[in-house]
């Protein structure tokens, strides 16, 4: 097993703290120095915990797998001639977790999803004969599935949730701000990562960061949400998402 620097330094800190604490307590009889040794042991344990949570495998492999799956989705979207923006659905509206729905026709802003959509590839989501779309899992679907997301309706709670998962846990942005105006959420991500548009799938689904933001918001609010607009400015990304129904 390849050991990363955090784990190595962590073990060194624990050994140093143990020796220093023991000598300070029994030889020097100094309480402050003993507690310094104890604090070194605690920090050593924290370093090991962080090291264990950090990826040790080659990150290229996961990138390759991810890019290939995104290219497959892009090919599918291109072949089917889909041009409408994706609708992100919460787990309460679709079987087997939150997913993204890409309507075959242009995205209807007044689309009403009356019953729970079954987990299939091509699905009928409305009452009309043309209300057909394809259901796909995005990176955001997996993030929303793997994190416990409580239902909330306030903007401050949604902002806190996004910061907790995206900024603190996944480190995909430094800070996230959310504003609401006229049934539209405006999300500003500072120093975002994975926000490039390289493939056709990105036009429909948004960037990777957008799929994660949209899936989390859909799951937290329990409402379907559609990608409205996404733009990247210097050091930040602004995403506009519109609640449907």
């Amino acid at each position: 097993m390849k050991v990363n620097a955090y784990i190595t330094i962590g073990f060194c800190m624990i050994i140093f703290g143990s020796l220093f604490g023991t000598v300070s307590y029994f030889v020097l009889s100094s309480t402050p120095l003993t507690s310094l040794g104890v604090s070194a042991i605690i920090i050593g344990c924290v370093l090991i915990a962080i090291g264990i949570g950090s990826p040790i495998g080659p990150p290229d492999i996961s990138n390759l797998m991810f890019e290939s799956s995104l290219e497959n989705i892009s090919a599918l979207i291109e072949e089917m001639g889909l041009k409408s923006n994706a609708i992100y659905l919460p787990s309460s509206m679709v079987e087997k977790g939150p997913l993204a729905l890409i309507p075959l026709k242009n995205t209807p802003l007044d689309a009403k999803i009356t019953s729970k959509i079954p987990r299939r590839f091509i699905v009928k989501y409305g009452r009309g004969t043309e209300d057909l779309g394809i259901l796909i899992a995005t990176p955001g679907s997996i993030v929303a599935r793997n994190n416990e997301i409580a239902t909330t309706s306030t903007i401050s709670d949604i902002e806190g949730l996004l910061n907790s998962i995206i900024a603190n846990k996944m480190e995909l942005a430094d800070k996230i701000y959310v504003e609401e105006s006229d049934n539209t959420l405006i999300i500003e991500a500072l120093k975002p990562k994975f926000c490039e548009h390289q493939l056709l799938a990105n036009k429909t689904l948004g960037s990777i960061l957008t799929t994660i933001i949209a899936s989390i918001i859909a799951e937290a609010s329990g409402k379907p949400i559609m990608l409205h607009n996404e733009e990247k400015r210097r050091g930040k990304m602004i995403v506009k998402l519109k609640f449907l129904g």
Partner: protein
Amino acid sequence: MKPHDRYLLSLAAVFTLTIVVFSMYGENRLDLYFSLLVLEYFIITSLHSPFKNKTEKMLNCLGFVLFAIFIYIVINRILSILF
């Protein structure tokens, strides 16, 4: 700066500051130092959470051990007052 680096830095800074300030006041009770370190660990950890799943589990284990030692210190202190 990455969030976990910020967490480590704040933990180290608070621990050092506590030890320096209390030693300046001539404090010599090891249980007091330890209790403060545990308290600070829990506060700073909760301020910087959530972490990645594996890190979270490991930190919970560490928190459990520290809390057990803290409880031992408290019981010891209560017994010394009573008897």
